[in-house]
């Protein structure tokens, strides 16, 4: 059964050591190898090289339908960094990431531990959990927009019907509630993936360890702290890295759920970059923002990779 392996490797993408590829056996095989990798490598190279060149070029220019295009050096970067809206969007992004990543890790571990217990409905839950994850983020945003709708959304309607509230609550109209709503929906959509990875990690821990600890008289919490937690630590880091990137680049959900509002309450950097380019048609500034986002993501990845224990992601011996 290799499916657990598939699930386990899903997020190792950033870190697969290139050096880990084993050596082939016949030197004369190399033309075949080149032919096999050429289609994809060329396709990706064209898109990567051109888009990088284009983004850098564009970020140093004023490019919009209104003005005559011209070179402005780093002006776009300065404008963005000095601007109030960029700071607001960065703050929103940071707060969002700090809210969703720990929540997903804690809930993910709890759900993994739950699913690790035998109980009736366990398999149904495991199979059904693909639903929130399979729903495209843009569509999930739409579903929850209706649930949170001001006047007669599902949540207001139900709460009103059972007598909890007398007047509808503007869930998406009040900055604090709107931020909470975005966090909730993101967690809803991402929790299945986080918990299935953590479940795979929990199950890879040898049962003998638990038995030995039980014999030594360790409490349930003690066993969790000394066996489970260290055992799933590499996977926790992988999930943290993956969710961090997802949260940081999250766009579809915001677009469908709040459009960055009310005001700028839920405008995060990736939505801001999109709005700058495609709403304001300020392509130069949009490109400058995009490059800064890419660099920030890169820095975060590199920092987290340092925290990763060696060999945690790619088993070199296999």
């Amino acid at each position: 059964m290799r499916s657990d392996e598939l699930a386990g490797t899903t997020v190792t993408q950033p870190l697969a050591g290139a050096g880990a590829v084993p050596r082939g056996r016949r030197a004369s095989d190399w033309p075949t190898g080149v032919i096999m990798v050429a289609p994809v490598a060329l396709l990706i190279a064209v898109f990567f090289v051109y888009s990088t060149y284009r983004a850098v070029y564009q970020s140093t220019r004023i490019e919009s339908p209104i003005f005559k295009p011209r070179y402005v050096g780093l002006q776009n970067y300065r404008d963005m960094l000095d601007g109030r809206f960029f700071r607001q969007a960065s703050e929103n992004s940071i707060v969002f990431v700090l809210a969703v990543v720990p929540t997903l890790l804690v809930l993910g571990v709890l759900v993994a531990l739950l699913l690790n217990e035998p109980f009736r409905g366990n398999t149904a839950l495991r199979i059904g959990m693909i639903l929130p994850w399979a729903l495209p983020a843009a569509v999930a945003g739409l579903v929850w927009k209706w649930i949170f709708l001001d006047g007669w959304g599902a949540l207001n309607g139900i709460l009103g019907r059972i007598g909890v509230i007398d007047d509808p609550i503007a869930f998406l109209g009040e900055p604090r509630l709107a931020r909470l709503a975005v966090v909730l929906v993101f967690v809803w959509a991402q929790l299945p993936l986080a918990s299935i990875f953590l479940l795979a990690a929990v199950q890879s821990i040898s049962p003998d360890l638990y038995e030995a600890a039980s014999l030594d008289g360790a409490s349930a919490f003690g066993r969790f702290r000394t066996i489970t937690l260290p055992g799933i630590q590499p996977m926790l880091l992988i999930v943290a890295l993956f969710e961090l990137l997802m949260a940081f680049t999250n766009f579809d959900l915001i677009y469908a759920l709040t459009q960055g509002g009310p005001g700028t309450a839920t405008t995060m950097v990736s939505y801001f970059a999109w709005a700058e380019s495609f709403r304001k048609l300020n392509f130069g500034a949009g490109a400058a923002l995009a490059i800064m986002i890419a660099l920030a993501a890169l820095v975060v990845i590199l920092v987290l990779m340092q925290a990763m224990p060696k060999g945690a992601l790619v088993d070199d011996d296999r």
Partner: protein
Amino acid sequence: MKQRSLGKSILIYGGASMLAVFWFGPFVLVALASVVPQTSLATFPAHWFRDPLNLQTYDYIFTGKVPTSYEQRGALRSMISSEVRDVPRAIGNSFLVATAVMLINITLGSLSAYAYARIRFPGRAALFSFVLFSRLIPTVAVAIPYYLIVQRLDLINSYWALILIYSVLTLPFTILVLTLYFRGIPAEIDEAAQLEGASHWRILRDIGIPLALPSIVGAGLFAFMLSYGEFLFALFITTTRERRTLPVVLGALSANTDVSWNMIMAAITLGTIPTLLLAFPVWRFMVRGLTSGAVRG
């Protein structure tokens, strides 16, 4: 199996119930709302069952027959947007594009992965890292440049543009997964085949692909799902109603204040069906590996 204490049972079943409500509740609400007449749906406090439930929203999407609850009050007729009738075609578009991307991932992805795992050629390690690294750049950062590439290739508003872009977005992951898998196949198997004079193409076809099939199918499914639901690129590459994919049509509906929510919910219900038909069997297959581990303890 050890006997569980009552407290632990309550904790487990309580937690499982809460989780089930949290995860599946919205889907139940969506499916329900799609058969509730708009006039009952737009009530506070909720009186969804005031009038009989019906399938008129679906009827409207497929045949254009206006639901009776709109006809009763002429003033409300504008609440229907004809855009919702684009949904079946949009599902078709999304499905077509996603299937093509999945096939590209399965064929070209397997080829690349096999070579990275099994054949030594100059620049292999560097190329492998490059392919993986390319995917780490956030999509918002490459949106405009990709648009310009598509424009230069004269592919704006074509399926090919979406297929190309989604392939670029999904192939690195597929290659990573499959390379790890091919590396796991014992070298003796294809060494023996090589000694008998089999080429790498034959080894891949007769040994590699059959062995790696579950991983290939899983990676293909991931590619399908991403392509079926992708929104950002589809939004500005599809410029006419005929070409729009499902997320774009639904996005347009959400921005349209005139459309009624029971129509949107019917559209979402319809749009979820194709992915589930494809995803459920594969997912069950993948989860079974984890499930078998659960009984072990």
